[in-house]
């Protein structure tokens, strides 16, 4: 018993973040329950659910596939159940991003119509560039007129019912991809139509064909991508396209002497205002006895604010409750997505106020402020006021782990191209592709996704990145993955010195040298590209690389990894990465292997049809090896195809992948 108890105790410390470990250790006997405790209580988790072969789509069920019962009561086989569950999961992700995208679009419309006063067109350069990409003429038009046309395109792409192809997506991917999607009938007509159709298709007694279901899931994933791209684009227009910025990360960014506001969720619309309000309300805070107000971010709201405002990162998804347990967070204001309901009970043990703001995100016991863009600043000030009044009620010892690291972030695709342009102003992206073709870099890897306590918190993120960096892979990152790097000191030059291989170091040094007049800090080991909707930025980079190399994306040495994937959004993102041509590693096996057929499609046959494919691997070292193999395979094939072109004197390189 003693051994078991000891093991269990040890298992509770499922993190490699020293700040997290310190809090877990300090609070082990406090009785305050967090995800780390609940994870242990939940073991063992349902095997049928994990395999994806539990079906509860109708209330005749739940049905599960066993050796004895190889079909559900309706006759659905493992492949139907797994594929159908997959569509439903992706719908969860797609609707989340669609919700985010439509929110940004409607705010942009309000800016055009003048019904909001706290928001404006901030980045006209981005507006014009976006218009050009969308083939919207800007000749002789006011900025608002241009934005109006773009908003109309987006709204039509959300709502179209005429069955025509959606407009936005083909404008931001290479034409070979569009043709592939048209041939395979997975190019969405509109985001909401795809969502509705897919939902209907997975009702009981509808589609039983695993390939048809998987293809629908891919259509859903493309709708997800479109939603993300729209969200990022309008956020940039309204709040500015990120540029390199220096900040810091981890719990040490909290300051006992300040009013601390944690901003958490995914959307910059409210949080931008909170940051502004906090800056304006320093006096009120000082009246309450504090030195001032500090904001710090959790999850993608944190990323949005870091990228544009340099707001420090507090922590990421898995440890959101632990931030409260410092006793220093006066208010945690949340918008949408990845808000653990568990924060409220933890907050109840402290003076911390949880403030929900979205009509779709409410938690019993918390404060709820119904956020309204037309009264944005007013609402933001209310948040800050609640935080200040809570500050006065601090009732427990404040213990802030003294862990924080310097962070260099703000690398939008535009910012990266700008940095490359210092080396080659005519064809900036060729700086990257040439480095890959010459062998200096082995490729690019997007590290993205969540935390998942099935793995040790942040361990997969960090080990995989270090291994890839050592092997000269250029790393870009978003979401909670990027926060893992921020918190562990991997978003700065010191990390380059410590972890980068010779090729990567040489490449980054060259960029530093060319940009030395422009950059205040040297470039980091991992390029933080933003929140999880900003995976669209990471894929824009892929599109530009493919255009430069004049080939379809499945030939480009660019991989992706979600080392600790958790949310349905991650499933949707993983699926579009594959559909859009990337080998995509997932560090937590999703509920698919219950059907060998669907698993076979995901791991192998997807490559034949779309060029991308999944890699399931939970061990971080093996994961890195497999990602490197995937990149090397592409580079090798590219070389062989180049050799073939020379040997057989063909005009073009083979289009096969």
């Amino acid at each position: 018993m003693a051994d078991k108890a000891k093991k269990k105790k040890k298992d509770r410390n499922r993190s490699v973040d020293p700040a997290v470990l310190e809090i877990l250790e300090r609070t082990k006997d406090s009785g305050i329950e967090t995800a780390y405790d609940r994870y242990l209580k939940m073991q063992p988790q349902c095997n049928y659910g994990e395999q994806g072969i539990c079906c509860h789509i109708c209330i005749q069920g739940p049905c599960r596939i066993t050796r004895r019962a190889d079909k559900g009561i309706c006759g659905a086989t493992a492949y139907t159940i797994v594929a159908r569950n997959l569509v439903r999961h992706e719908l969860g992700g797609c609707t989340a991003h669609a919700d985010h995208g439509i929110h940004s679009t409607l705010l942009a419309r309000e800016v055009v119509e003048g019904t909001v006063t706290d928001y404006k067109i901030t980045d006209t350069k981005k507006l014009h560039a976006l218009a050009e990409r969308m083939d919207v003429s800007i000749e002789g038009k006011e900025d608002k007129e241009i934005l109006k046309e773009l908003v109309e395109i987006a709204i039509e792409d959300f709502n179209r019912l005429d069955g025509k192809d959606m407009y936005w997506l083909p404008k931001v991917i290479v034409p070979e991809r569009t043709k592939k999607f048209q041939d395979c009938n997975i190019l969405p007509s509109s985001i909401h139509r795809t969502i509705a159709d897919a939902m209907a298709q997975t009702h009981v007694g509808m589609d039983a064909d695993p390939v048809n279901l998987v293809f629908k899931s891919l259509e859903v994933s493309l709708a997800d991508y479109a939603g993300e791209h729209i969200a990022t684009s309008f956020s940039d227009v309204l709040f500015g396209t990120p540029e390199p910025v220096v900040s810091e990360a981890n719990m040490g960014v909290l300051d006992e002497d300040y009013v601390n506001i944690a901003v958490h969720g995914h959307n910059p619309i409210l949080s931008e205002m909170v940051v502004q309000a906090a800056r304006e309300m320093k006096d009120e805070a000082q009246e309450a006895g504090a030195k001032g107000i500090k904001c710090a971010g959790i999850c993608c709201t944190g990323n949005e604010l870091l990228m544009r405002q340099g707001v420090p990162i507090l922590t990421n998804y898995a440890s959101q409750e632990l931030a409260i347990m410092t006793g220093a967070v006066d208010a945690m204001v949340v918008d949408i997505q990845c808000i653990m309901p568990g924060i409220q009970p933890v907050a109840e043990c402290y003076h911390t106020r949880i403030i929900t703001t979205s009509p779709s995100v409410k938690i019993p016991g918390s404060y709820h402020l119904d956020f309204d863009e037309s009264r944005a600043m007013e609402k933001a000030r209310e948040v800050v006021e609640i935080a200040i009044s809570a500050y006065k009620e601090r009732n427990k010892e404040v213990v802030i782990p003294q862990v924080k690291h310097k962070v260099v972030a703000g690398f939008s695709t535009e910012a990266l191209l700008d940095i490359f342009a210092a080396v080659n102003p005519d064809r900036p992206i060729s700086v990257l592709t040439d480095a890959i073709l010459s062998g200096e870099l082995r490729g690019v890897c997007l590290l993205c996704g969540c935390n998942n306590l099935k793995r040790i918190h942040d361990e997969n993120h960090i080990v995989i990145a270090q291994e890839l960096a050592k092997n000269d892979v250029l790393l870009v990152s978003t979401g909670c993955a990027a926060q893992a790097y921020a918190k562990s000191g991997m978003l700065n030059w010191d990390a380059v010195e410590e972890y980068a291989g010779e090729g990567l170091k040489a490449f980054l040094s060259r960029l530093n040298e060319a940009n030395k007049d422009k950059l205040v800090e040297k470039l980091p080991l991992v390029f933080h590209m933003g929140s999880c909707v900003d995976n669209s930025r990471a894929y824009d980079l892929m599109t530009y690389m493919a255009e430069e190399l004049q080939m379809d994306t499945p030939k480009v040495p660019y991989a992706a990894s979600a080392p600790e994937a958790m949310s349905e959004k991650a499933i949707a993102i993983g699926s579009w990465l594959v559909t859009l041509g990337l080998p995509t590693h997932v560090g937590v096996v999703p509920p698919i292997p219950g059907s060998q057929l669907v698993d076979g499609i995901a791991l192998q046959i997807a490559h034949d049809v779309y060029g991308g494919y999944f890699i399931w691997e939970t061990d971080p070292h093996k994961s890195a090896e497999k990602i490197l193999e995937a990149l090397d395979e592409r580079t090798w094939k590219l070389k062989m195809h180049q050799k073939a072109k020379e040997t057989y004197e063909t005009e073009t390189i083979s289009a096969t992948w």
Partner: protein
Amino acid sequence: MADTGVLRREWEESFEEIFDGVIDEANPPTPLFQKAYDGAIIATSYAEILLNQAIRRYGPEHPVSYPDTGYFMPVITAYSGEQVTKLGELVPILNRLRNQIREELNFLNARLCGEATAYAAEIIEVLRYIDGENPHVAPWTGFLGDPIVRRYGILLVDWTIPGQAVLVGKAKSSEALGKIVTDLQSKGFMIFMSYEVIDQAIEAGCRLGIDFITFPTGNFTQVIHAVNYALRAGLAFGGITPGAREEQRDYQRRRVRAFVLHFGERDEVQVAAHFAAIFMGFPVLVDHELPEDEQIENWYISHPDYDTMVQVAMEVRGIKLKIVDIPVPFMVAPAFEGEAIRRRDMYLEFGGGRTSSFELVRMVSEDEIEDGKIEVIGPDIDEIEEGSAISAGLDIKIYGRKMQVDFEAVLERRIHDFINYGEGLWHTAQRDIAWYRVSKDCVAGGFKFRHYGDLLIAKFKDEFPAIVDRVQVKIYTDPEKVEENLKIAREVYAERDARLAGLTDESVEEFYSCKLCQSFAPNHVCIVTPERLGLCGAVSWLDGKASYEIDPNGPCEPVKKEGLIDEAKGIWESINEYVYLNSNRTIEECSMYSFIDRPMTSCGCFEAIMGIVPEVNGVMVTTREHGGMTPCGMSFSTLAGSVGGGVQTPGFMGHGRTFILSKKFISADGGLGRLVWLPKELKDWLGDDLNKSAEAQGLGENFADKIADETIGETAEEIMPFLEEKGHPALTMDPLM
């Protein structure tokens, strides 16, 4: 077709017997069957999505076809006989095949899954050509057109090419894969590749492409092009009726000696495709350990040892090779026949009109020859600077108890093939314009001039054992000696030409038959006369005679000219009787000199085909090299599809390219003066000989200029003004019909 019960009963009674008792019913390989089932679902569902999407976008009436084929979608044509030309026609076919994918897991159902997967793959692939563009660049081939099937298909089914190896997946290393490819090539195999084995072969520096009978088809369902190639060989040369699924599979099993080598991981669709091969009677070898329940004895075999993989595959498929061990430091195989040596890869060349060269085969008596002796007179290759063009000549003496002077030319012409079989050696033309090249790689590998001798001695003895007993070779590289012997060679050529000029249809007592193609075209008989070579272009009257000497029971035998019926058309009673008896009593009469009245039949491997163009009262000729349209309204592929297979088609006839120069060229129908259209390539190839023949037939000078080609037009209407302007004789000749 809907009643699968009937189908199953038929199968169980015949071809399917080869699978009887293979499965241990107590321990069936269920996991393997499950993979095949899953793969068939994936393939057919994917095909359905693509097909119905194409119909949504283009409409059901939209045409669908592979390029350069007269066999529509060959998998479908061969197995169920539908001649698909429109998208909409594919829907019921795919539905029928979807319907034969059954949940019950057993060997029969796994093969049916395989068949369904083959149909699905054919549909998936043909849709890639819907825009009319070739989706591949060399060396990737994608679909192989009929010209390539014709070029090698016969060699495949008559076993000159010992078999068809289909390589799929990714091997343990490029080097290991390269060894296997080279081994297969040196054994003369036809090779199809799919997936990363292609990239590995590129890395290993293997010679790929149509000229090397090594076809990197592409990835995924592109492996189906190995299948639709094999099936077209059955349709074209086996004369198997489209849709005769049973007969077709039997033919494939007996004549197309194919096997599959799978490298690396397998996915579900690949396993289903493996069962498409098994369905045709072809075994599958996998390069890694498989559990017991994923193997089928003699059909689905785990064989991780690369060194013996090819050997085991051949044993399982029952392929035995005639081993000829030639002591030369380079590989010798038909696979290298098409290899080109470009100037930058060349170490040395001679002949070709730029420097002096000759090659001469002479019959000598027993005491004038020392068997196996090879002399190099002059500097050897390592004494000659890289990049040189030298003078050189090959003098070959042959003694044989049954050798005849007439065979000298027959043997001499084979030098071209034998030299080209050598990897790194290249040869073209003959006699004193012969042109030789040796590659840098070959010299680096240790090539010396004497190896020409080793190669020729071995090949002459191997291929002509009945007439060649001793061979001696002298290779001249000393310029003076070359000139000296060139003179002698020219005297021999002149004597030979004088003798051959007297060799006419009238001057001989007998013609020769050739039934070489009956192994695959059972009703076809060629009659080869001194003035009409075999329609494949490879068998002259002298070849027929030599062949008969070598093996009286072989493909050629003398046919007496007796009982003349029609002198102008060239009809003899004795020949009619021979043809009737040897065409399985299908062709009763046959004329030698008319293509309108009872013309000779065609096996399918003709070099060229002629067709009537009634609008201009003439005849056109097209070749298998020419992919374009012709004035008779059909391309070569379409013409070949309707004329081949051993049937008489008045107005259309297959023939050899040089037959055009013969004075017996459709002499009963007006002769060369009828010729109104040729592909430009053939016109250039015939060169001035065409004008000479025309002059000899009283057609005046520069007759070639009166003949239209594709640059003038591709329809009768388009060429008519040209023919009128040039005053083409056909326009004023008696009506053809």
